[in-house]
């Protein structure tokens, strides 16, 4: 999946990837997408939960070239 911005959150433990995501969401325009790349096992639940709580869109999950999970979010407001 394409993303307008990619955050490298490898080896960060929860909740640091979500904090990084929240801090960076203002760096993309509304309707643009951001990918969070992280091996934190909590992110699979917490990225979609953050999107629901903050009213953004969770686009989906794929993997970075090194196999680390990549979670894509669309800024809605």
């Amino acid at each position, binding site marked *: 999946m394409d993303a307008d911005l990619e955050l490298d959150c490898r080896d960060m*433990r*929860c*909740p640091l990837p*979500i904090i990084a995501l929240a801090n960076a969401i203002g760096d993309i325009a509304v309707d643009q997408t951001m990918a969070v790349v992280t091996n934190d096992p909590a992110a*699979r*639940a*917490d990225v979609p*939960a*953050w999107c629901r*709580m903050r009213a953004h869109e969770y686009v989906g999950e794929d993997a970075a070239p090194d196999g680390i999970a990549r979670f894509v979010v669309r800024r809605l407001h």
Partner: protein
Amino acid sequence: MTNSTDRPSGYLDSASSEPLHPAARDVLLAALDKGFADPLALHGSGRNARLLLDNARSVTAQCLGVREDEVTFTPSGTSAVHLGVLGLLLGRSRVSSRLVHSAVEHSSVLQAGAWHAARFGGTTSSVGVSSSGLVSYDGVVDALSTPAGVLAVQSANHEVGTLQPLPAVFAAASASSVDVPVFVDFAASAGRLDLPAGWSAAAASAHKWGGPAGVGVLLVRKGSRWRPPFPVDDRVDPRVAGFENVPAALAAAAALQAVLVERDSVNARQSELIDRIRSSVMASIPDVEVVGDPTERLPHLVTFSCLYVEGEALVTELDRLGFGVASGSACTASALTPSHVLEAMGALTHGNVRVSLNRDSTSDDVDRFLSVLPEVVARLRA
């Protein structure tokens, strides 16, 4: 002897372990002196122990609305779950060795399924839950459309408090084309809510209702095809091996009896306090999610997750202020993975706190907790 529980008033973790009920304490101390002997021995001390053990079984059966010969005391709730799940699977091995379970079962159910799969080539299927933790009825029906050995569904969730629709689950499992025995882990609700009929085996743990730790209760419905999954011996109860913990079993029964007498008033008081926590948390903390069903829930328990906060930091900071709470966040567990319950619900897994009230938690205890919580969260977010 004292009736004081010496409970620190900030202990809000009864879902992990309820403080010993005063009635259980009195009985336990007396039974330690009177019930030490071998209940199978043919002397007076043995007969005394046997009398106490039979009494414990009889009271427990009466409290739970079951037959005495359906009650087995085990060394823990986990042990009761293992025996219940595996014994039913063994009894059904000619039909199917597949365990179907809800995605939010206690880890002891999941571990029993994994062990059975590794040792005996069984399989497991997980049925999903709603965002409030309610097991999907359609998911159950769908999972049972292929042959299943046992269906395991809890009475209530131990982490988020959501009550499962057991009568509907039993109806789905007993449909004529399916007829699958149901195992019910009722540890979270035992002593608080009645266990509806329809199970083939069920399990609970005395220290969750104010009995001593080290006493589990396994129920096996008369007529169920249950087979001992572990070695047996020639003692009082054919379902479990080893020397009986007579004093603890009797104390567990005494606690259950006492808890049932107080149940209506305690449940009503706790449920109101939990409502207060739910609404206060939502009103006073930004970016928070209260997890679990708001009405179809246990009376004494609430769980919430705070964005951007580490669960371990929350637990540690609240402990420093005198409050003992639990957390399902990954960083508080020995494992690196977050709570499978929160994950299955799609809930936020970090910044998680579970508050569970004791029978004597007061309105003041709750107010003190609610008065410090917003500031703790704000400080940790700063």
